[in-house]
């Protein structure tokens, strides 16, 4: 009986302790970055051109936004269309569908450095785009494709069949039903997936160093080399000279991530998934 009590007590302490540790680590990381970075947020950090004097993060910020938009512009249509095919057109249990699922699963498990390597070999070298915004965006668009596909598929699945049948009953064709009835109802779920994808793009480094390069500039064309905020931070940490500015950059990155998480949680909550 005493043994029983001890077991309960020890395991209780361990489980609560582990959860507290997880929360504590997060609080510590965020607190530490804010504490070190916030005092160094100053106007010169958002100057429009970068030099080693001002260590401006503005080119990085603009590059990150462009990189995100371009990657999404490539990946979202493909992901949404693929999800439409898988949910509305494909025959159940077809060999092709299982192959698509298998490859999508494989893609979601590939680490970003492998994407970076592939991007270097294919987009940068084979297609001859050089280190560029375009090569980076194409590389990232493959990386986020499984995420977009999965969230979109789930969203389309959760649209009740009654809506489809209603549309068919009113004489709408299959395409019209999908575009006008199914997709609009699935939109919040698709958005949640897109926001998660933005999070991955913003935080990405390894896949970009050898595809988009590391030049800190506001890109003049899709073929200019750019340096996103994450890559910018990595470059700064390697130089070891601008520690304060790195912390400030980390604060900006963290804020973006927190905003993205809050937004996606809001959307998910509003559609009542899980």
């Amino acid at each position, binding site marked *: 009986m005493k043994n*029983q009590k001890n*077991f*309960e007590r020890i*395991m209780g302490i361990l*489980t609560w302790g*582990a*959860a507290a*540790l*997880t*929360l504590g680590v*997060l609080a510590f*990381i*965020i607190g*530490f*970055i804010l504490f070190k970075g916030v005092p160094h947020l100053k106007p010169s950090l958002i100057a429009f051109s970068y030099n080693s004097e001002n260590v401006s993060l503005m080119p990085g910020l603009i590059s990150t936004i462009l990189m995100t938009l371009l990657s999404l512009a490539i990946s979202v*249509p493909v*992901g*949404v*269309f*693929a999800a*439409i*095919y*898988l949910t509305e*057109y494909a025959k159940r249990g077809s060999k*092709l569908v299982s192959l*698509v699922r298998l*490859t999508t*699963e494989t*893609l979601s498990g*590939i*680490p*970003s*450095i*492998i994407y*970076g*390597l*592939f991007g270097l*070999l*294919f987009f940068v070298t084979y297609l001859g785009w050089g280190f560029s915004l375009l090569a980076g965006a194409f590389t990232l668009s*493959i990386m986020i494709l499984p995420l977009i596909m999965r969230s979109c598929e789930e969203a389309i699945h959760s649209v009740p069949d009654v809506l489809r049948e209603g549309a068919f009953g009113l004489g709408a064709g299959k*395409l019209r039903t999908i575009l006008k009835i199914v997709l609009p109802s699935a939109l919040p779920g698709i958005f949640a997936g897109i926001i998660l994808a933005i*999070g991955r793009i913003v*935080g990405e*480094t*390894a896949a970009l160093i*050898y595809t988009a390069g590391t030049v800190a500039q506001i890109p003049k064309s899709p073929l200019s080399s750019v340096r996103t905020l*994450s890559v910018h*931070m*990595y470059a700064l*940490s390697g130089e070891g000279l601008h520690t304060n500015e*790195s*912390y400030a950059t*980390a604060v900006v*990155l*963290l804020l973006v*991530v*927190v905003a*993205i*998480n809050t937004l996606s*949680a809001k959307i998910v909550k509003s559609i009542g998934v899980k």
Partner: protein
Amino acid sequence: MNKSKEKFMAAVFFASALISILAVGLICVFLFVNGIPALFKIGTLEFLGGSQWSPMDQPAYYGILPMIVGSLYVTAGAIILGVPIGVLSSIFMAWICPPRLYKWIKPAVDLLAGIPSVVYGFFGIAIIVPLTGNSIVSASILLGIMILPTVISIAESALRATPRQYYEGALALGAGPYRSLFYVVLPAAKNGILAAVVLGIGRAIGETMAVIMVAGNQARMPVSLFKGVRTLTANIVIEMGYAADLHRGALIATGVVLFVFILIINISFSALVRKDRG
């Protein structure tokens, strides 16, 4: 008119679905075509089993055993540190946590997953490295933290999927709440937990930037837990910038080795998930 539009869009949807197959195909082809010749030129055994990596020397040595061992060390370290904490946290979240607290802890775990690797790396440089140096231990601690959200979210959903009757049955037989959890619910969710561990391994072995920032990156066989080590991922990023010819090929072949590791991990993960679903 309408009919041809229907047909056209159906074809577009179909083509889009094929993109992921195409992507995996291209990735395989380009990695293997660029990596395998170097592998043969160096000699598979020398490459995989050679313990000296000195591509700039004359003659050059291209043995990636130090990096394979390095990756395994830091991954093992991350699992040893991250899995117990992650699994205990997931038990807490799935079964113990009061709903009011869950509203806070769940977004916190999501946030932990969203923090970019460079920010983790920066944190590692500032806090962990001063304590344990640029070393295997530092990389393991940092990776242990980084795999937490992966382990927690997969283990949590596995634990939630175990029927409530198991827990209540154990309680009815006189077991305490924690004994019921650890002896009945946890074993029932065994496959899901294992899947969480496997995915954690995949994350840890594939992580690049954070590891580079804290691991020291010396390309030599690990000498001590408190000395530096280089992983497969670090080898690629550090030297790709200036490598040429055979050296470059050897780095791509390093990527191939990493890719094969990841494929094996992915296959075991999906096998576990499938087993779990029955």
